[in-house]
């Protein structure tokens, strides 16, 4: 399969001089997702400064995360790491009493080779609180990959699926979880109970992985339920104490493109069966995702095509805006392939897909889907640039003059000043973009600069820079 792709999709690799968020930023959404957790970032002032500035006002809501700020004595090993961490974790336990403490290792702990993995089990015993270690550092990872490292570490903590349990018990468990989600999606309880008793017996347990806001998680669960697929658990769950059970009977499927380590861990260490599917971003992606899961379970989908069609029809006003427009992804959060595929299906032309890191195996289905989408839309294949070089990209953008650049905040204002519409890529990470229901939100984001600038177009001040000494922009 990978041969077939490389014939048509071109992959390049540049210098890796690009702007992205540090992977420790994952604490921002994960501490909100996992309600009983506490994230302790073991790093320096640099890490702290990034967190406090990048997460803006969230810091004032008494967050369940903090820095263990390393001082000179820690670096030169004058202080004992174990004792220091114990002191801080005792204080956290006293103040917050979390169900789990997650240590986020940073560049500094890597360089000074602080043995977090070694200390955690010892301290865990002393404190009586689970301590999960994730090395989400800028030496190895970019932005959303931080979540990947945390979930991979958490995968080890999921309980073992007890194969001795008889089916009945499994069903019971499933239906309680289902009830929980159906409550969230505000459906009538009785109805679901009836449904569940009919449907929940056929397929082996399915666990989805990837952190999503609880409403989005329940939306996806209920989409699957329409196809008689039960979701038996999520990694991560709303609470650490509710982590799903895993084992060799369990099927797993990812909801985000940046979770390749988690996928590997689930397969290799927990012996789960991975369903490789495109990701449920955009109505096309959501349908393909559901279809793939159903096909693995030998379930015939019903009304799925109509459902997708309906969503596309609802998007008509936005599609008119984006059709024929060109996009340039500078690349910083690994959602790029899926977003590009969706935008191509919307009728846009994608010049370049920058991406920090591309796991061609984990994203295989998504890549194939991208390729097919290009073919069916009659649009040239975009170039995929791994580890992009922002400077070179900006030169390319000067030539291509895309209608929209999806880029980090470091480049957004300078590009706008040069007359290029931009959308901050970070928003795609924090917005709800998964499933049928949220397709509109993706386009809402994509079209916002286009809509705003439609209003300003005729005022005559699109280029707002003083004459540049180098290459002229237009």
């Amino acid at each position, binding site marked *: 399969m990978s041969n077939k792709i490389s014939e048509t999709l071109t992959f390049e690799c540049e210098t890796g001089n690009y702007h992205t968020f*540090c992977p420790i930023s994952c604490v921002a959404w994960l501490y909100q997702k996992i309600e009983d957790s506490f994230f302790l970032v073991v790093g320096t002032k640099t890490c702290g*400064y990034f967190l406090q500035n990048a997460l803006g006002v969230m810091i004032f809501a008494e967050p369940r995360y903090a820095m263990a700020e390393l001082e000179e004595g820690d670096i030169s090993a004058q202080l004992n790491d174990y004792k220091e961490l114990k002191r801080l974790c005792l204080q956290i336990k006293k103040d917050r009493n979390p169900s789990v403490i997650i240590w986020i290792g940073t*560049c500094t702990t*890597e360089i000074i080779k602080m043995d977090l993995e070694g200390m955690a089990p010892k301290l865990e015993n002393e404190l009586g609180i689970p301590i999960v270690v994730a090395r989400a550092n800028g*030496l190895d990872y970019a932005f959303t990959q931080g979540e990947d490292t945390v979930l991979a570490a958490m995968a080890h903590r999921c309980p073992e699926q007890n194969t001795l349990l008889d089916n009945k018990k499994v069903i019971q468990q499933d239906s309680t979880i289902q009830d929980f989600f159906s409550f969230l999606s505000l459906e009538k309880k009785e109805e679901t109970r009836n449904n569940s008793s009919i449907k929940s017996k056929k397929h082996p347990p399915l666990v989805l992985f990837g952190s999503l806001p609880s409403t989005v998680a329940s939306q996806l669960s209920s989409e699957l339920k329409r196809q008689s697929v039960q979701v038996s658990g999520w990694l991560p769950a709303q609470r650490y104490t509710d982590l799903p059970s895993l084992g060799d009977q369990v099927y797993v499927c990812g909801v985000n493109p940046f979770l390749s380590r988690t996928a590997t861990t689930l397969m290799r260490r927990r012996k789960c069966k991975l369903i490789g599917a495109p990701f449920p971003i955009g109505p096309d992606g959501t349908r393909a995702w559901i279809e793939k899961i159903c096909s693995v379970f030998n379930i015939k989908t019903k009304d799925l095509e109509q459902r997708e069609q309906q969503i596309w029809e609802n998007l008509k006003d936005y599609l008119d805006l984006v059709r024929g427009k060109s996009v340039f992804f500078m690349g910083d959060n690994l959602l790029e392939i899926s977003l590009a595929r969706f935008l191509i299906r919307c009728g846009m032309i994608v010049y370049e897909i920058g991406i920090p890191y591309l796991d061609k195996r984990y994203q295989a289905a998504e890549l194939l889907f991208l390729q097919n989408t290009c073919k069916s839309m009659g649009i040239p294949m975009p170039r995929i640039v791994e580890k992009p070089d922002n400077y070179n990209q900006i030169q390319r953008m000067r030539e291509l003059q895309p209608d929209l650049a999806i880029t980090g905040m470091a480049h957004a204002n300078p590009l706008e000043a040069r007359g290029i519409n931009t959308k901050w890529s970070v928003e795609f990470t924090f917005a709800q973009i998964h499933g049928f229901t949220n397709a509109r939100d993706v386009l809402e984001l994509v079209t916002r600069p286009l809509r705003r600038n439609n209003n300003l177009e005729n005022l005559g001040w699109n280029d707002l820079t003083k004459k540049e000494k180098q290459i002229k922009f237009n």
Partner: protein
Amino acid sequence: MKLAYWMYAGPAHIGTLRVASSFKNVHAIMHAPLGDDYFNVMRSMLERERDFTPVTASIVDRHVLARGSQEKVVDNINRKDKEERPDLIVLTPTCTSSILQEDLQNFVDRASTTSNSDVILADVNHYRVNELQAADRTLEQVVRYYLEKARRQGTLDQSLTKEPSANIIGIFTLGFHNQHDCRELKRLLQDLNIKVNKVIPEGGSVKDLQSLPKAWFNLVPYREIGLMTAIYLEKNFGMPYVSITPMGIVDTAECIRQIQKHVNNLIPNKKVDYEPYIDQQTRFVSQAAWFSRSIDCQNLTGKKAVVFGDATHAASITRILAREMGIRVSCTGTYCKHDTEWFKEQVQGFCDEILITDDHTEVGDMIARIEPSAIFGTQMERHIGKRLDIPCGVISSPVHIQNFPLGYRPFLGYEGTNQIADLIYNSFTLGMEDHLLEIFGGHDTKEVITKSLSTDTDLTWNYESQLELNKIPGFVRGKIKRNTEKFARQNNITTITVEIMYAAKEALSA
């Protein structure tokens, strides 16, 4: 190790980057892992900068960890040299490079043989200095580098300008209202018939640094950044400097008098006299002097305020509140711990107590304990104020995007006095409005009765007493609650009833 949620001053490399990117055509290369270029986001977002921030990273990744940077840093410097042709490239160490202990100076030496740009290594240690100290050092380092270079090349012209002139040192990117202050200082100097020789680093070119000694004196508006440069210039070129921050009417006048002294030292025959100018500005151009006399300001007499910020702003605002407006400063403080002595000396006699800390929870607890009518602090104090229902005027970094206003808002000079008067007055008025709303049974429906940050109370309020407490106007509610609880504790009472409240009131007024 320190458990930290928030910090007032950033890490050292931020200071270096702020100085480097304030100069024109200077490029900074950070020796840092992926994701540490967050400075670019801040500059692009907070300053709404139109140009690409001239900061890139020479990425430290796994390979660098294993084998060292080898050619990477040199290549990156040479590459940037070709791409942007900057005058100067500043190699910037970060916390990561501090512990890797690679010989960055060696990279710099090698790169400077091949690149057309000058290349220097910023001399800052992540674990020893903070953002402000690093900025101060880097500015001095750049100035020293170019003056010594000019001296070696024999191009250094030390003759003074014909007319009196000054350098303004310490205006730069992401500084609190720096752009506006700079404009106001230029105007002030212009009024005094003093030419501005150079403003550094903002918008200055490093090529022009060699003409710094042509000025008659240096003006250093902010305590934190620029002083090292001014001291260097005094030591090596005999240039006097004025470091009195012209913030508030009294200090602005004092600053002008200092300037007068230096100017008169250099023109012995034709003395300048700025006193008439000071008088004119104070009484009629600036509105602040009149304002402090007006009955509006009378209402502020004796009101309690708390001040916190960097050393310059906190000290100046404290003195303005106490000396120029008759407001009682219950506590003033700064997070510039390295400048404690200077700060204490500056605010001596203008406040009840002094707090030197960089722990925001200490500041929060102090505010909760004092319950001032208004706070003047950083964005952090604004948030504390929100939580405690106390208005706050932001007077110092760290700040958010709303503290980079598009309109003209200097803190320095005579226009600055007007801006500060507005800020102070508006903060208190908001408190007054709130108070009136309470008195006339406004829209207060909230049940919240605890005001302190710590919730470690062992006393319970019964339903009626809670209702009663809620009837009390917000601005005194906290105090009454505290007094009642104090009374209850003294008398070993655990449940507070309406009767206890009255008893406490009687006991205290008796």
